[in-house]
């Protein structure tokens, strides 16, 4: 068994986005470890209870939970989690988490909070779809993920890579001006 993870790719078991009461905003499971919705909810509930007291705001935090490694980060009233098997390279999980957090921040124009997330749930769901496909990491760079999602509102035609960067820059610039004006 010890050899098992060696021969496989880094695998993500789930990505969770919960609110400050532990309720689901958006979740995505890639593993059969939690076959039913109640198993999923139970996992989310106990994970939330276990982590809610910790300070995962400036740096991502990490914990062992039910022989899984969970990395997590909180921004305002949103709790981001990425779960992997207990033999997984913690730093890879952390990279995926960072990609998720960055992409969501860009997509919500740095206004990372529950209401904003729910109002842009389509973006969040597309974002999850672009980070991991069936447990395999697709992309870890937040701006590229956000770029792929944000082509949404753009016309097709413009080359993707350029669109990505210009989109990201525009978002950042807009946010900056807003926060300065406030």
């Amino acid at each position, binding site marked *: 068994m010890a050899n098992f993870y060696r021969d496989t790719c880094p695998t993500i078991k789930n990505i969770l986005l919960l609110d400050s009461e532990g309720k689901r905003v958006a979740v995505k499971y890639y593993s059969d470890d939690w076959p039913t919705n109640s198993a999923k909810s139970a996992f989310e509930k106990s994970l939330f209870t276990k982590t809610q007291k910790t300070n995962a705001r400036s740096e991502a935090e990490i914990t062992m939970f039910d022989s899984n490694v969970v990395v997590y980060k909180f921004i305002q009233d949103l709790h981001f989690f990425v779960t992997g098997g207990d033999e997984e390279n913690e730093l890879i999980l952390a990279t995926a988490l960072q990609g998720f957090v960055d992409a969501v921040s860009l997509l919500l124009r740095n206004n990372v909070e529950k209401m904003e997330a729910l109002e842009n749930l389509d973006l969040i769901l597309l974002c999850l779809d672009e980070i991991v496909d*069936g447990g395999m990491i697709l992309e870890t760079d937040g701006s590229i993920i956000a770029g792929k999602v944000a082509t949404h509102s753009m016309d097709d*035609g413009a080359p993707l890579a350029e669109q990505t960067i210009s989109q990201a820059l525009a978002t950042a610039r807009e946010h900056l001006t807003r926060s300065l004006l406030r």
Partner: protein
Amino acid sequence: MAQPLVKKDDDRDDEVEYSPFLGIEKGAVLQEARVFNDPQLDPRRCSQVITKLLYLLNQGETFTKVEATEVFFSVTKLFQAKDLGLRRMVYLIIKELSPSADEVIIVTSSLMKDMNSKTDMYRANAIRVLCRITDGTLLTQIERYLKQAIVDKNPVVASAALVSGIHLLQTNPEIVKRWSNEVQEAVQSRAALVQFHALALLHQIRQNDRLAVSKLVTSLTKGTVRSPLAQCLLIRYTSQVIRESSMNNQTGDRPFYDYLEACLRNKAEMVIFEAARAITELSGVTNRELTPAITVLQLFLSSSKPVLRFAAVRTLNKVAMTHPMAVTNCNIDMESLISDQNRSIATLAITTLLKTGNESSVDRLMKQITNFMSDIADEFKIVVVEAIRSLCLKFPLKYRSLMNFLSNILREEGGFDYKKAIVDSIVILIRDIPDAKENGLLHLCEFIEDCEFTYLSTQILHFLGIEGPKTSDPSKYIRYIYNRVILENATVRASAVSTLAKFGAMVDSLKPRIFVLLRRCLFDSDDEVRDRATLYLNMLEGDGAIVETDKDVKNFLFGSLDVPLVNLETSLKNYVSVPRELAVSLCIVQCLLAYSHVFVQYRFKNLQTSLLILILLPKEVKSLPLAEKKAPGKKPTGLGAAPTAPTSTVDAYEKLLSSIPEFSSFGKLFKSSAPVELTEAETEYAVNAVKHIFDRHVVTVIVDASDAEEFTEVSTKPLRSLPYDSPGQTFVVFEKPEGVPTVGKFSNMLKFIVKEVDPTTGEAEEDGVEDEYQLEDLEVVAADYVLNVGVSNFRNAWESMGPDFERVDEYGLGPRESLAEAVNTVIGLLGMQPCEGTEVVPNNSRSHTCLLSGVFMGNVKVLVRLSFGIDGPKEVAMKLAVRSEDESISDAIHEIVASG
């Protein structure tokens, strides 16, 4: 930063009702989904509805098959819209709905069109969707496009195809394996993620070919892989190759070690860590190889990122198990982690230190841990306790401070698991370190003075009973134990009584005092406590009539059970499942169990159940030490034997039959029927027959098979002589097909030679008169193949058996005297055990359900649910539902009823 946040949350509480999905309801959203069918599509509106559908699914809502199909079909209409955003949502919902094969066909053409679109985003996503929902047949059609996509210049498209390939390899390996060339090309891609995905797929394609993997690693470690994720993969593959090659290459340098070591100097932390971890896990790693890896991990220990610290300390913790000396360099950094905010890190640091610590640092460490224990969770405390246990076994001289630590934390608040871990640790220390014994036992005694966990109290009392009498001053423990008798609940009191008795048996000087204490227990309010006290008093008094020697007492109290408990349990259950006529409410039954070298004696509190005492005695103890005993229910069987308690006779039969050499090869006796009278009660010759069923043989008593075709007569064992007025036995063996419940009828004839006996000498005369005597027929019926074994919870048993082999049918039983009579007839017919008292039919009831259980020949469990109904003219109808582990058995049960 935290302050304004909290405030914001409070503000929100007032308007907590607001949410874009407030009051969302499945039915309404499904209604809204009709907009997908509008001739003029509103992309924005449609996107919103899809988002709502996805929201519902995400919250755990499920769609019925019909609903999902309906949504799926209307979603397919949306391929007409040109809106990119809407198309993305369409892809998403198709993946979530996971359509069935015939539905997939509908979207295939649309997706294939998108796969060849000019828009990269369409292509990438269409590939992922199509590969997710497709099956093998479609795959051959799109294979060509996928191969192209793998080498597409757009990295997103290439990644999409490669990742899809990784998933498809599980289901259609032979197709994906044909893509090797393209995948190999993609490994050289400049895009980081493409490289990663291509490498992962290439390795999976080749993973069963060691040589190919080795070649792959050899060529790639020369340095074309740049993506950190791909490098992590390569490190994993490299250590796999090292692992497999180390068998045949014992000498010289380890191959590829240089590559791993070079990765320690990589820019990306995840690569450094992956390499460091790979080095620490090399089999038979040397200190020289280990050092550079430990050095980088040590740097991580002081990182500002918790994830990095955690990863490093977790790896070092593992290294400390095998190479504690290599980790000691990190001890200073490790000690600063004891106060880490992240408790997982702190705990790992502590346990690592406990593993690497030397004798001189133990005291200092214990001090630090003491400060730290109060504010960590129980699960971490357990880890610490276990680490301390192993430390103590490593440095037995330090037991004093470690034992003190354990006893201190034992007194503090904590849950059951935590307390159990501490108690277990103390028990282990007492066992392994003789010096710690007295001290440790006293700590445990103090603990049970105020212990809220019955389980732990009884465990400790049991342990005290074993260890306490062997100490220098056993008397000092008596007070603690007797306090339990005064203060605790019945379970603890009972085990305290046992412990007291053990002291009495082992320490002669304490005996008189123990007697006094045990006599007081005779007035306890609980039956169990009183019973134990009575028993032990009798055992200890040893007044000759009951137990001969002290040795017997000790054996009885401390002797271990040399019987497999499972067997014993089964035997007892079978025994209890048979209703017994017990004349008095409290009586002692002895029975010879299947495990014939053990006598089991147990006592029934009332007629049916409630096992009170179970005592096992070695075979040698012939006389059982209780005055009220009855003779065991073992009687001569076979001809002329009166019916006796069924189970004990079965065992007696078994013994009897196995003692006859001809029958010993038949295997285990499955069932013996109750004796069947073959003669009228008051006739010249009284003949009973008992049917003994083996797997392949039927042994009956008495001869002449005429109407039983499937039975082959194998042998007979005639009776040589049968003196007047004394019973004797004869046997006939029939062979039948194995496992098949063959039935048949035997007509019997008693053939014998009557000889006169000279009353003076008691010797028979030589000549006799041949005679025959017609006996009644003996039938072997299906019920003979069913053992009436009860189940404790019929419902559970029924549910867990499942409906796979359920057979249900209805029968008319014709006019009957009463419902009860009908029920009893059917029970008798089936020969099964009524469960949960359902054999009793309430007076005047018009319908009744009866639950039966049994074991069919071949050890197949059978459960039967009988529903009876009776109408005006006493016509009884019955519904028979049978569940068993075997279809044919279920049918067989029906046949019994149908033919009865």
